[in-house]
């Protein structure tokens, strides 16, 4: 019976299909919000799903000079990585499907798989736009990854646990956005960097390098990468809401808190011009990382003093 339950959890709910559709819904909300902020109408509600169905049905062009095996497996690995991460976070406000001590670290690394796969996919082709896009993707990965990791460690240290479900339970009585505001802000911006959303979309800046690392991808591979990105958006918002916004204990609070976060993300997307990659790196290391480090030190010291 337990095995059946596990398989159901893995394939349908809360991980698997439910996350995929959740991700598509959140992509739509994001696109619609940005469009409204930019005085546009925006897509219809089924547009992201329709895009995926269309892409899955289309021919996948295999460019010359790529490693075939890598080219086909990278999108699958990327999507599998983020879907697996979905098992460990309190999606839809329910208890994580799986949980063990230290699953926070696993989740963080699973979430980085997508970016890593994107970078590899770009470096795998001979296309100049892809190569530059891949370089930028990986450069960006190195700039936001450490600060983002630190922002998730802050709540973990206060909660005294490396297990997402325990931190979530602890956060239920402690709104850490109040005690660690810097961590909250940096984690939000880190998520935007992770998802390559404007203004951190230099790796796929269409006016410079077409679609960046994804330029040569079409059809199924491109669809899977996009799905991966949608799922990561949902999981990232869940994580931040669980850690900083007072935890997630039922579907209603989940919806409320993640949508507030999504509104913030959409607002930030509409507000800024694209940063150059050197500016992104500078921003992260000169400002983001330093602030988070200071906050982390304060947290550790205070925790030591108070207990």
């Amino acid at each position: 019976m337990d095995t059946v339950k596990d398989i159901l959890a893995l394939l349908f709910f809360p991980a698997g299909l439910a996350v995929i559709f959740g991700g598509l819904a959140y992509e739509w909300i994001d696109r619609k919000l940005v469009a409204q902020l930019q005085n546009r109408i925006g897509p219809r509600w089924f547009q992201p799903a329709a895009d995926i169905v269309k892409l899955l049905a289309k021919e996948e062009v295999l460019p010359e000079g790529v490693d075939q095996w890598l080219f086909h497996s990278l999108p699958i690995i990327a999507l599998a990585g983020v879907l697996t991460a979905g098992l460990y976070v309190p999606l839809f406000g329910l208890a994580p499907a799986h949980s063990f001590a230290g699953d926070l670290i696993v989740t963080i690394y699973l979430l980085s798989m997508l970016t890593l796969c994107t970078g590899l996919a770009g470096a795998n082709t001979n296309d100049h736009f892809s190569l530059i896009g891949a370089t930028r993707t990986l450069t960006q990965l190195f700039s936001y990854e450490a600060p983002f990791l630190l922002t998730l460690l802050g709540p973990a240290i206060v909660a005294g646990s490396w297990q997402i479900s325990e931190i979530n339970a602890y956060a239920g009585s402690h709104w850490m956005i109040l005690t660690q505001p810097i961590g909250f802000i940096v984690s939000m911006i880190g998520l935007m960097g992770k998802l390559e959303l404007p203004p951190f979309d230099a790796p796929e800046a269409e006016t410079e390098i077409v679609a960046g690392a994804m330029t040569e991808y079409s059809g199924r591979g491109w669809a899977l990468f996009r799905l991966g990105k949608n799922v990561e958006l949902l999981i990232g918002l869940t994580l931040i809401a669980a850690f900083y916004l007072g935890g997630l204990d039922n579907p209603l609070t989940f919806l409320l808190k993640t949508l507030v976060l999504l509104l913030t993300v959409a607002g930030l997307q509409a507000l800024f011009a694209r940063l150059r990659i050197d500016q992104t790196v500078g921003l992260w290391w000169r400002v983001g990382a330093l602030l988070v480090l200071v906050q982390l030190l304060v947290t550790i010291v205070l925790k030591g003093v108070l207990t």
Partner: protein
Amino acid sequence: MENEKREKFIVPIGPQHPALKEPGHFEFTVDGETVTGATVRLGYVHRGIEKATEDRNWTQNLYLLERICGICSHSHAMAYSLGVEKLAGVAVPPRAQAIRQVTAELERIHSHLLWLGVAAHEAGFDTLFMFSWRDRETIMDILEELTGNRVNYSVNVLGGVKIDIDTERADSIRKGMDFLEERTTHYLKVVTSDETFLRRTRGVGFTTTEQAETLGLVGPTARAANVARDVRVDVPYITYADFPITITLDTRGDLEARFVVRIKELFECYRVIRLILDKLPAGELTTRMPRKIKEGETVSRIEAPRGELFYFIKSGGGEKPERVKVRTPSINNFALVTGTAVGHQLADMPMILAGMDPCFSCNDR
């Protein structure tokens, strides 16, 4: 070997590329993210318009030349009309000239707002792009109300203009100017104070005044580098002597200056349009033109939205011109891209290119 390989890492932009919806080809040699060389190739949409003018009569050419460019169509038609009228020795009634100036300035507003959107999009600032294009609709509506067309307004005829501006139309233009002036004030604030946007424009694509002179830049691009070059001021044509504009200059010479100069020029447009509407001379709209233009050749220069537009017209005394030569402002300004690219980041290239407001359609006639 390694060095040579690096040397050859070329990023092509165009003729099909999302950064450039128009067909030009740029090759940027890059070392990492830094540009080490730039070349430009033009001529993808050569349509043979100059040659085609020799097979059409003087009136037909007006409509052909208007279609050189979709944005500055009035400038082309006006430059041609002015040239032909000079050759024929015809004096155009002052009311027609004033209406020509109104249309020219409306067109400049339309062009500059369009450019603002495109340039913001190149910087990844899509919100500004969407808003400036929404406001540009105001000017398109005015032009449609005035002439019946949103582009290729076909205002000119040889010897005058086709349209008249009555009080009702003047009022709707004034209303549009009021709305746009308020919006433009906001845009000026945005491009001079938005932190992320300034990071992409300040100090980028810098040219000194001497460089701008050497490269032969024209139009707002030159004025942003403090080169006082504006045909409307230097050699006032039509009614620019009666309703003069003040030249807009900026000393900084970078992308930010190009933004500021173009946006400040918009205010000048609003002011001059209001002035003309208040003091629109009365009188005829057209005057008689001969079918055949007497033998001779002439040059006519006007200030198009992008800079000096130059027409050389030669008549053999017949119904058709012997030669029409057009030189558009974009060809001068392309030197800016190749001249300032080296040393910049690859990410700056679309911005520098958009900063000179290239018009490929004008360029490849």
